[in-house]
């Protein structure tokens, strides 16, 4: 019994002379909500497309849910995908499309009907479910597309840029929906909005130039066990006192932010010391955050050459 929902071993995909995936290797554990991070052209969409069988890998191996490379027969009903830039078959209504895709996933007619209606409710499209897709707005189409990936309750859901083009209310509804799937289904989400990804993910795979830069839990990737960022009110940060009391820690001040770097496992103890010293110096605490944040980690890695 494999514990990985998705595993890539040295996967290569070329488009002419351009290397889209350059020996890509990573794994996504089952039941996680995985953020797929990378700059434009990093290979996110290509990797998604290889997983779903839209593109064929030139070299390497990959495994989907322990059943080998993606095969629509072997993986029937096991994978749902939101392909990026794929237009919806727009002569149908959202309800017809979802029912059709649900039935192709292997669901019975009754189950496909019930699930389609429930999903259209969840993506706030109940009122437009019987109108042709070509009459819907971009955001509505996007939500229909997201619903197509979830119909049939597949164990692995691949969502390529699900939140792009959604207004804040719609994005919130979709985030809620994705959060509910945590633990029940493995969800792989790619997005350029790293704050969003950090909120909904517990596993991260970072890509750069077709290779995996980092992978691991959000905590590991953002150093949550070693770094704390303290957003402070005005006042002189007692750096000397902190260095004196926490000799194995490093402290830096960036504007009104104090960044504390600790040895593994020492944060809980040392955080109390930091709070004491800040209180003694009369400095207000505005926000505390563990780790560097996915966005900063990604930018540092990409700009720093990985």
């Amino acid at each position, binding site marked *: 019994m494999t514990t990985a929902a998705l595993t890539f071993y040295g996967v290569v995909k070329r488009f002419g002379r351009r290397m889209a995936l350059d020996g890509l290797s990573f794994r996504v554990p089952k039941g996680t909500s995985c953020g797929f991070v990378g700059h434009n052209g990093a290979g996110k969409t290509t990797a998604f497309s290889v997983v*779903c069988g*839209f593109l064929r890998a030139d070299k390497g191996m990959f495994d989907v849910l322990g059943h080998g490379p993606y095969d629509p027969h072997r993986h029937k009903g096991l994978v749902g995908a939101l392909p990026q830039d794929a237009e919806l078959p727009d002569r149908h209504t959202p309800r017809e499309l979802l029912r059709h895709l649900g039935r192709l996933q292997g669901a019975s007619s009754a189950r496909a009907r019930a699930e389609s209606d429930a999903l259209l409710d969840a993506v706030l499209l109940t009122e437009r479910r019987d109108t042709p897709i070509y009459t819907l707005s971009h955001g509505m189409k996007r939500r229909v597309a997201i619903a197509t990936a979830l119909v049939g309750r597949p164990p692995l859901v691949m969502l390529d840029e699900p939140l792009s083009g959604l207004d804040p209310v719609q994005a919130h509804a979709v985030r809620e929906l994705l959060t509910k799937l945590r633990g029940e289904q493995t969800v792989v989400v790619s997005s350029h909005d790293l704050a969003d990804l950090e909120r909904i993910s517990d596993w991260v795979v970072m890509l750069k130039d077709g290779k995996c830069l980092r992978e691991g839990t959000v905590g590991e990737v953002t150093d949550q066990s070693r770094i704390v960022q303290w957003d402070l009110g005005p006042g002189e940060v007692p750096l000397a006192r902190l260095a004196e009391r926490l000799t194995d820690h490093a402290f830096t001040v960036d504007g009104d932010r104090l960044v504390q770097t600790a040895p593994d496992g020492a944060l809980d103890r040392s955080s109390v010391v930091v709070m004491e010293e800040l209180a003694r110096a009369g400095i207000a605490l505005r926000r505390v955050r563990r780790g560097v944040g996915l966005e900063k980690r990604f930018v540092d890695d990409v700009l720093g050459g990985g």
Partner: protein
Amino acid sequence: MTALRDIWLIAGFEIRRAIRSWRALALLVLYGVASGGATLLFTRFVGMLENTLADELNVAPTETPGTMLAQLVTSELWHRTVRHLVGSDHLADVLVTAPPLAVFGLWFGFLVVPFFAASASAECVAIDVSTRAIRYEAQRTGRLELVLGRFVGQLGLNAVATLAASAVVWVVAMTCMYGVQPVDLAVWLLAFAPRAWTFGLPFTALGTAASQLTASSAWARVLALGGTAGSWVVFGLVTSARREPWTTVADVVGPVLPQSWLQGLWEPGFGWLVSAAACAGLAAVALSVGYVRFSARDL
């Protein structure tokens, strides 16, 4: 069983898509209008034949086509006309017993169905490859099931078109011709409709194959219609070849042209099923050629 279920589901979805697309609708309307117009002209032609017959019999000419239908269908004049339409004495002997408009309806169907079938099916795969909409289904079923489903869907559309054209012929006959037996004509039209549909099989496959070869629906349509028109030209050359080596070439090329099996589709009883099987075989070959490309391409 799963494969058959998927093909069935995709076919149903494809018919609904095709019927809602303006191109297929326009083609359907065009087919119907062309059938109606051609039938109307044919009723005039029947009127002319009747008047020629009236001259021969020294009776007064008629104003309304069909007034002398009973005499016409037993005349040598009509026998000659049918022989020209079907290209065989033996078939003409049999077909003179059928209502003239049923014979004409099938003849016209054989002429038009290939172009309708090839044009409508040319966009069945390509358009969704270009917009990537094909990914929604391709991710859930095999590519073979996908192509076969779309092909079967197009065959369903052809069936709708063929039946609609038959209905138009019947309506025109009822309104513009005297002496037509409504039930008799309807039965003959319904009996002939599957033959026109069958002749459309290889051309639907040609369109579906073209649609698999390119992601551009415009190019697919050019390939499909070019192939259809080309097949008629080649058929014309094949049937007119009289000298070696062209007769040998014609013997080789002839059987792979659907038109070579056309005469067989006029055969009475179950005789036409041999030619129908040949058309189905040609369709399978055309589909396979397209599928070789489609199965290996990135979507």
